[in-house]
């Protein structure tokens, strides 16, 4: 969640958000449509440098973020790379019970290709996530004529994410020191209790917020300036 914090304190935080957004959109488009290994690597290098060197995001933090989807990546790449069949058509293979497990040249190239594309796209998205705050993005979406309902829901959801994140942490800690997460059974029950408590707090917040809205002369719209 700390990505959010960096979006406000990095060195590019006040840089024109439209330019940042356009750059990222273009990088994503090129990486997925053109999708050339060398171009992808170029995007990865450019975006990483922009994020870490120009934006001033700590390198270890950046690498940590890049590794978040690692499990998915490894498992999926393995699925793409490896195949099993009775025919021996593989560049490298092992034989198990008359089946061949291995990979072909094509799947090897495809895997490498996916890898470069994934890291090109990740670096572009992370550039956006690390340097452009959601508050700036919402204004961009407004410019892009995203429907008003969606903009309003974005605003409200973004705000309430932080309300409940804090509450969840407090409830979790209170459970944790009372041994709520010692052992599988307890963890299970505590998780359910946590979800319940949080849910009830959603409803309470709703009731209180409606009252507060009345006082703020809410007329049915959550506006933002341009």
């Amino acid at each position: 969640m700390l990505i959010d914090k960096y979006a406000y304190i990095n060195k590019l935080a006040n840089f024109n958000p439209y330019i940042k957004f356009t750059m990222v959109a273009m990088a994503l488009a090129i990486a997925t449509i053109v999708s050339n290994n060398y171009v992808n690597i170029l995007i990865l290098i450019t975006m990483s440098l922009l994020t870490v060197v120009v934006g001033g995001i700590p390198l270890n933090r950046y690498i940590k973020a890049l590794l978040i989807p690692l499990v998915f990546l490894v498992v999926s790449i393995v699925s793409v790379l490896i195949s099993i069949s009775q025919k021996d058509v593989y560049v490298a293979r092992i034989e198990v019970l008359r089946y061949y497990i291995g990979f072909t040249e094509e799947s090897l190239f495809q895997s490498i290709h996916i890898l470069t594309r994934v890291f090109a796209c990740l670096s572009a998205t992370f550039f956006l996530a690390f340097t452009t705050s959601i508050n700036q993005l919402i204004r961009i979406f407004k410019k892009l004529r995203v429907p008003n309902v969606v903009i309003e829901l974005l605003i409200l959801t973004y705000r309430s994410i932080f309300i409940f994140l804090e509450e969840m942490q407090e409830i979790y800690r209170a459970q944790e020191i009372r041994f709520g997460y010692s052992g599988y059974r307890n963890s299970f029950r505590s998780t359910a209790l946590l979800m319940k408590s949080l849910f009830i707090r959603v409803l309470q917040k709703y009731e209180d917020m409606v009252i507060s809205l009345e006082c703020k002369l809410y007329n049915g719209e959550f506006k933002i300036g341009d």
Partner: protein
Amino acid sequence: MKNKKYLGFIVSLLLIVTPSISYGMHIMEGFLPAKWALVWTVLSLPFLIYGILKIDKMFKNDTNAKVLLGLAGGFTFVLSALKIPSVTGSCSHPTGVGLGAILFGPTVMTVLGTIVLLFQSLLLAHGGLTTLGANVFSMAIVGPFVSYGIYAGLKKSKMNKTFVVFLAAALGDLATYIVTATQLGVAFPDPVTGIAGSLTSFLGIFAITQVPLAIVEGILTAIVYNLLVEY
């Protein structure tokens, strides 16, 4: 529950929130080639647009519902930061989406789900922008629809309510996983065995984590449901 009118809301939130996207496997940023990224986006769009129109209409009648939906969005997002004990001992992240299928109609949660998925990719690095369309389709459309369908279809039957909730949540989750595996399978056909091979391979490899998870999540949802009804 002191307020009966919330009951429908609760059930639907739980059913749609936790299950489908809950422990779904987000297809990561950049993983899909352009063609497939586009295909799934185009397939998701009608649901999204219909949902937006519906929400628009709903907000005209009850402007406070905006706040409720916003809070529900925050709530579902936050569940994805919560580590849920899973069978294998590792921790998986639930990711809830959605909301009041019963109160608001199932397409509403497609919109909310999309918003949550967007925040997940920007704030948590789960999923991605290029794969948003595909993830929306599996997690904010198919999963919730399956859950909702099962719940709506069985709630009047004589079956035990808790079991119905369990089924709806668990099967919604499974549906999401099958769709995701399919999305990957068709995008990357096995050079030797074709789509059939790649599909089997993705279904098989993710089954190790996703099937137990679906069951765990079904149970969890049922427990929370009972706790809330008791409250």
